[in-house]
């Protein structure tokens, strides 16, 4: 590598030299690692706030007479409960599931894994972070102001989040396309990078749709237009006859976004899981090429199946059939990925680290949640057989909890690289098992409750009496599971400052480029020389010498030298 090839993408001068104050270093630093970490701090705040809100909702459902601070303190009305649900949903979906695997880990590790010095447009990246933070602030504040203006503020915050996601997605796409280092061809890209890339493409398409819907909604609320006339109808200002077709427009725009948004959240998790499985099973990812195609397939089908949320609304009679077929065909890439995971595990030398446990937990939850999705994709079944609680169980299992497991797995895996310390493994395992059992105890009975609501038992059979203990059981499981998260918080906070130090570059003996540099990462990533990649991302299980893997940056000349070194 000639010295002239060394370019500092973030403007030539290291930000550490220009910004000396803590605030300047932390919040005005366009370095991708700092931005990625800042996203993760936002996520940490949002996930605990969101979890607290879910606890409040449960208490409200089980003991409606209890007066709770946030629900009853301001005004005790059904709208407060709806606002609680809205805040819980928007924090968890936007700020946790969308931001953590993509913006958080993606920003930190995409450039490192492809051998780049930064994202393609660092300043745009910083702008996205600020917009996301402002959007989080707006969403949270909207809960505490009167409902009318609060809702407007919420819509504006969502619009801001759309903008941030669009900029971020643009950055990811360009970085993955143009900033790969020498030798990092597409087949050599790690599956994580593929997943971030496909997610970014999907995100750059669908967040535009939600932004358009937000523009209409904001103009309805602020300038008084009538794109979606429901509020006016409810207020008696318009005849109900004119309602025809108008909420359907909102539903179309919204579901076009929201169904694909599920895959924006899940896709990076699929990539992370494949990556962790290969690393901790010490085997090449099985059927790597098929897995890559399956990731692309999930993105593609995920973009096309939005219509199946509208079976109940009514649409062209042929449309449900088409959407049902598309939705069922999403099973194909999912099964390919599952086969790839099982093939990777088969005969592997499995190391049950906490990161691996979370990856395995992800597979378990993804499969059990995904199976109930097959019922929901059948338009005839979905309309007749299930109610909200089935959907709640399905959705939380496959999207919320499964994705959270992948995020936690990624955190345990990359923590040494980010902080130069380790998370405690015993505490991590305790947290894993409590959470794993807990989420099944919460969401599996919900499926059953959803089915029971539509069953037609003999007249004398007391359904309500049978259902009541199940609800109590769920409540108990929620309390235990949320309490278990304190273990994680303790482990995390303790390890960031006082965890066991990691002195080696590659504690997990992984192959990708981020493990070829010091832990914690250096400011300029790879030092003065550009890394060069010589092989695929998952060359595990080589028997040539004592170490069972070949890192991507190992030159062909170094391999025999290593073998000789080991043989001596």
């Amino acid at each position, binding site marked *: 590598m000639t010295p002239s090839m060394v370019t500092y993408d973030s403007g030539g001068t290291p930000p550490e030299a220009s910004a000396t104050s803590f605030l300047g270093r932390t919040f005005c630093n366009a370095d991708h690692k700092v931005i990625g970490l800042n996203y993760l701090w936002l996520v940490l705040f949002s996930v605990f706030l969101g979890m607290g809100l879910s606890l409040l909702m449960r208490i409200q459902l089980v003991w409606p007479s209890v007066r709770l601070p946030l629900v009853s303190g301001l005004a005790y009305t059904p709208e407060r409960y709806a606002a609680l649900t809205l805040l819980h949903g928007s924090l968890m979906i936007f700020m946790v599931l969308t931001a953590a695997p993509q913006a958080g880990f993606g920003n930190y590790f995409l450039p490192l894994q492809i051998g780049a010095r930064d994202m393609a447009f660092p300043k745009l990246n910083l702008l996205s972070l600020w917009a996301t933070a402002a959007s989080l602030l707006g969403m949270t504040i909207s809960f505490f102001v009167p409902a009318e203006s609060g809702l407007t503020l919420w819509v504006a915050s969502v619009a801001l989040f759309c903008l941030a996601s669009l900029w971020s997605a*643009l950055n990811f796409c360009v970085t993955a396309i143009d*900033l790969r280092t020498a030798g990092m*061809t597409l*087949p050599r890209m790690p599956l994580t990078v593929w997943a971030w890339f496909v997610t970014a493409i999907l995100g750059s398409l669908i967040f535009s749709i939600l932004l358009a*819907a937000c523009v209409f909604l904001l103009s309805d609320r602020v300038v008084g237009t009538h794109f979606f006339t429901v509020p006016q109808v409810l207020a008696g200002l318009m005849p109900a006859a004119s309602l025809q077709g108008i909420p359907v427009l909102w539903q179309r725009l919204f579901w076009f976004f929201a169904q694909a948004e599920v895959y924006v959240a899940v896709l990076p998790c699929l990539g992370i899981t494949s990556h962790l499985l290969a690393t901790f099973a010490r085997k090449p990812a099985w059927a790597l090429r098929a897995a890559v195609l399956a990731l692309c397939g999930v993105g*593609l089908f995920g973009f096309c199946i939005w219509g199946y949320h509208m079976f109940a609304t009514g649409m062209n009679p042929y449309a449900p059939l088409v959407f049902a077929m598309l939705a069922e065909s999403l099973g194909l890439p999912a099964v390919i990925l599952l086969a790839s995971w099982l093939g990777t595990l088969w005969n592997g030398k499995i190391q049950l680290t906490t990161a691996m446990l979370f990856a395995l937990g992800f597979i378990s939850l993804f499969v059990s949640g995904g199976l109930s999705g097959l019922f929901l994709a059948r338009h005839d079944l979905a309309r007749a057989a299930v109610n909200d609680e089935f959907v709640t169980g399905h959705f939380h299992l496959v999207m919320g909890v499964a994705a959270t497991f992948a995020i936690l797995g990624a955190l345990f895996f990359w923590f040494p690289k980010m902080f130069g310390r380790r998370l405690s493994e015993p505490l991590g395992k305790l947290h894993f098992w409590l959470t794993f059992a807990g989420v099944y105890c919460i969401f599996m009975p919900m499926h059953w409750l959803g089915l029971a609501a539509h069953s037609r038992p003999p007249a004398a059979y007391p359904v309500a009496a049978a259902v009541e203990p199940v609800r109590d059981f769920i409540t108990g499981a929620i309390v235990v599971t949320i309490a278990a998260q304190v273990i994680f918080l303790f482990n995390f906070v303790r390890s960031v400052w006082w965890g066991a130090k990691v002195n080696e570059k590659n504690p997990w003996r992984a192959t990708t480029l981020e493990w070829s540099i010091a832990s914690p990462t250096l400011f300029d990533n790879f030092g003065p020389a550009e890394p060069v990649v010589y092989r695929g991302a998952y060359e595990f299980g080589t028997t040539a010498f004592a170490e069972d893997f070949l890192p991507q940056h190992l030159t062909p000349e170094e391999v025999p030298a290593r073998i000789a070194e080991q043989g001596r």
Partner: protein
Amino acid sequence: MPAAPVLDDIKIIIEDIGKGGGNKPPAGGDGGGDDNKRRPPGPPSARRYRTGIALGMVSILMFFMALASAYLVQRTTSSRWAPVHLPAILWVNTIILLASSATMERARKRLAQADISGFRSLWLITTVLGLTFLAGQLVAWRQLVVQGIYVATNQGSSFFYIFTAVHGVHLLGGICALLYVYRRNFESAKISVSLAAEVSSYYWHFMDGLWLFLLALLYLGK
């Protein structure tokens, strides 16, 4: 419809295997084997701006398609639909915007001939034409307001105001880019003046085409 992109992906991967596999350390800077065929050559630092603007245009197109599909749906189903008679000044505005695209291309031609002063004056004319277009759009709004047609009067007028407003905001972004190219001292910049002019010209022509599309939609939809 879903088959084509998948096949594309397969093709990319197959091409890539053919070119990039093995132990050969590829020559510097070139990431994937398929990159050369699709994009103009250049160091990655230059390529990223072209890729970025292309992907950005796809996102923006998606945004306007969502607006346009809502327009088409509402036009046929809404009971509150009333057509908007487009003010005549819109046609003048359209000609001004098309003229700005023409002067921009002439400016870039001057730049390619290393005629910097010619480039700068034509570039400034382009910017002024863009600002004139925006002023013309405001005049069109004014004329509608005088007729008593406001944004909330009926759904047709709502769409008219929304379309022109969001297009105007995007065009304002383009004007910022033009001013950046005009004012920036490219001695110290990471991007060269010709690349900056090229990238902003793509965006500008795109805004031009988008306006023609919106105008056709409003005209035919009335």
